[in-house]
């Protein structure tokens, strides 16, 4: 009986553990190679500059900033601090970030800062911010780059994804793609 069970386990192992994932990899690589390889973005010289789906860290005033990442968007791992809502460390971090954001963005009122911008995403790799979180940074980026705010508005719009099928999820701005587009603009 034990032998029979081992044989069955091995047969199922071959089907589910080897045949299925390898077949899926083959099919996916043939029909959708870009998505199946991680939606990587390459620059003109073919160098990989990131993935459309993975957030990057931006601290320079001339770029739009993304969400907080306790792992600094290091995508060899993933994670967050897992602060409970009652954790004093969460309050401390938030107060520090509010002060820093207000200092870097003069003219912004504290109550207008959208919550997504100063909270840690679940994955630590969230590439998106809310449209409001992009709007609130327009003045700073425009000033740092000597651009008209209207030019930035157009870029934000071009890099905003709506709800899926018009219903599901939230509208969002891809910060990685937006900043890439910003750098293109200069050339």
């Amino acid at each position, binding site marked *: 009986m034990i032998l029979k069970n081992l044989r069955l386990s091995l047969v199922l192992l071959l089907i589910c553990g080897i045949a299925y994932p390898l077949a899926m990899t083959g099919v996916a690589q043939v029909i959708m190679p870009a998505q199946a390889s991680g939606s990587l973005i390459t620059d003109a010289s073919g160098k990989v500059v990131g993935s459309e789906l993975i957030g990057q860290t931006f601290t320079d005033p001339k770029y739009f900033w993304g*969400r907080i990442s306790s792992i600094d968007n290091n995508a060899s791992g993933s994670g967050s601090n897992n602060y409970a809502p009652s954790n004093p460390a969460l309050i401390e971090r938030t107060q520090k970030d509010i002060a820093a954001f207000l200092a870097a963005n003069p003219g912004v009122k504290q109550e207008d800062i959208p919550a997504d911008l100063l909270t840690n995403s679940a994955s630590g790799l969230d590439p998106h911010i809310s449209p409001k979180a992009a709007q609130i940074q327009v003045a700073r980026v425009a000033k740092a780059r000597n651009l008209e705010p209207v030019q930035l508005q157009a870029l934000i719009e071009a890099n905003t994804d709506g709800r899926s099928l018009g219903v599901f999820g939230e509208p969002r701005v891809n910060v990685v793609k937006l900043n890439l587009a910003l750098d293109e603009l200069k050339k």
Partner: protein
Amino acid sequence: MDFLQIALVLVVLFVLAIPMGKYLARSFSLETTRLDRVFGGVEKAIYKLSGIRVADMTWKQYAMAVLVSNISMVAIAYLLLRLQGMLPGNPSGIAAMEPLLSFNTAVSFLTNTNLQHYSGESGLSYLSQMLVIIYLMFTTPATGIAVVMAFMRGLTGQRSIGNYYVDLVRAHTRVLIPLAIVVTLLLVTQGVPQTMEPTATATTISGTEQQIARGPVASLVSIKHLGTNGGGFFGVNSSHPFENPTPLTNVIEILSMFLIPAALPFAFGFMAKSRKQGWVIFGAMFAMFLAFLVTAYANEVNGNPALERAGLSQVMGSMEGKEVRFGIAQSALFTAVTTAATTGTVNNMHDTLTPLGGLVPLGEMMLNCVFGGDGVGTINILMYAILAVFLAGLMVGRTPEFLGRKIEGKEMKLIAIAILVHPLIILAPTAIALATEMGSSAVSNPGFHGISQVLYEYTSSAANNGSGFEGLGDNTPFWNISTGLVMLFGRYVSIITMLAVAGSLLAKTPVPETMGTLRTDNSVFTVILIATVVIVGALTFLPVLALGPIAEWLTIR
């Protein structure tokens, strides 16, 4: 818009679940069906390769077959984890997993729990992800589906309880593999990677170097949900943009993990030749689910009062530990579904949920029958149904019968064991962990939330869910051993006792329905069933909930 997108997902679920229930009932029929012509060839080849005979079993043979096959699976999994450093399929050069963590991981995936005390990116080679994780992600829900089919055959008085090996193989060939192929390809269209290439290196826009882990992700994520498994390819599970890149994948993943648990009550109705009976069971689970969902959504959308006081507007809701693309609606829905179906995959960090929002996953896992995992959840709610018949029968002085079979002392004793074990294996280890240094040193958040973290870990283990309040530093010998044992008890005690109940009921001569029979196919029984679950299942946990989430809520509200 929030209401609309949640309602739409539930409507689609509904539309899919009924035909799926019919399909399940037919797929596992003891009679010859047309499906045999489609799948019979492959199945016969598998029987032949494994040397299996397909004769009917007694409940004891069935239970023994479940145990022996599961032991051989866990042995294979453990060996592969220990040897992964020397095996091929390891482009990122990951070392062998140490013994206690290997024990915990093998048990965790064997029991359909998928509690992860390792992080996928750095802890497992691609070969282990495929041969251990994906493999067990198929076989354990298949085991659950097999056992529930045997149980339902017993309850509905079929020819026999069936043959475990036939059920196990059919769950693969007729249900899980075809669905997994479709869902995998859907996920890849949205950007979930499926590659054998190692970690990519990028030079970012700001000029720093970024390592981007990837791999055969889609083929794992599909079965992770379909099989109510829940263990992520990456550490942060389905909140990772590679596991769940768009709101559309979020909806696909929600539907995948809810489909089979929601279809099984209807399958039961078809097998019992009483569709109403299926609706009664589904209705009770759906009503409880809605109550949990509304609680989760309402609390998350209101935001965190502590952050509001710190000066951060909470108009968007509580966004700490959530992803922008999902927002509050898709996050709250995912949380309510993943712990109802005891999948344990997460698209937001449960540790960061508001106190009462975090009560929802805890509560659903404590009841363990709000849909529940593939197979086992349906077994649990049917167990409560038998208990409800017994209690209600005693109160109104009617003979306790369920589907024409008398419920007697033997069945009630077995059910009592299964019902009592669940709180015991949650509360006793929680108390031990909180009272000892080796347990409590893992707590990462101060105050009452620390109690919730410990409680969540054992509740998740006992319910074979696998999600966590992930701040807990749980990769230590104490946690690996204790949660490993809790997972084993949580899975096998109820499987074996319920197979015994099925065997015992099947052996009885059916009694004709009379005026004195308590009807179990109307809305009155739905209410009795919910009340039984709440009174028997929930009250046990009220004191500890008051110490954890409720106390935390009081401190920050």
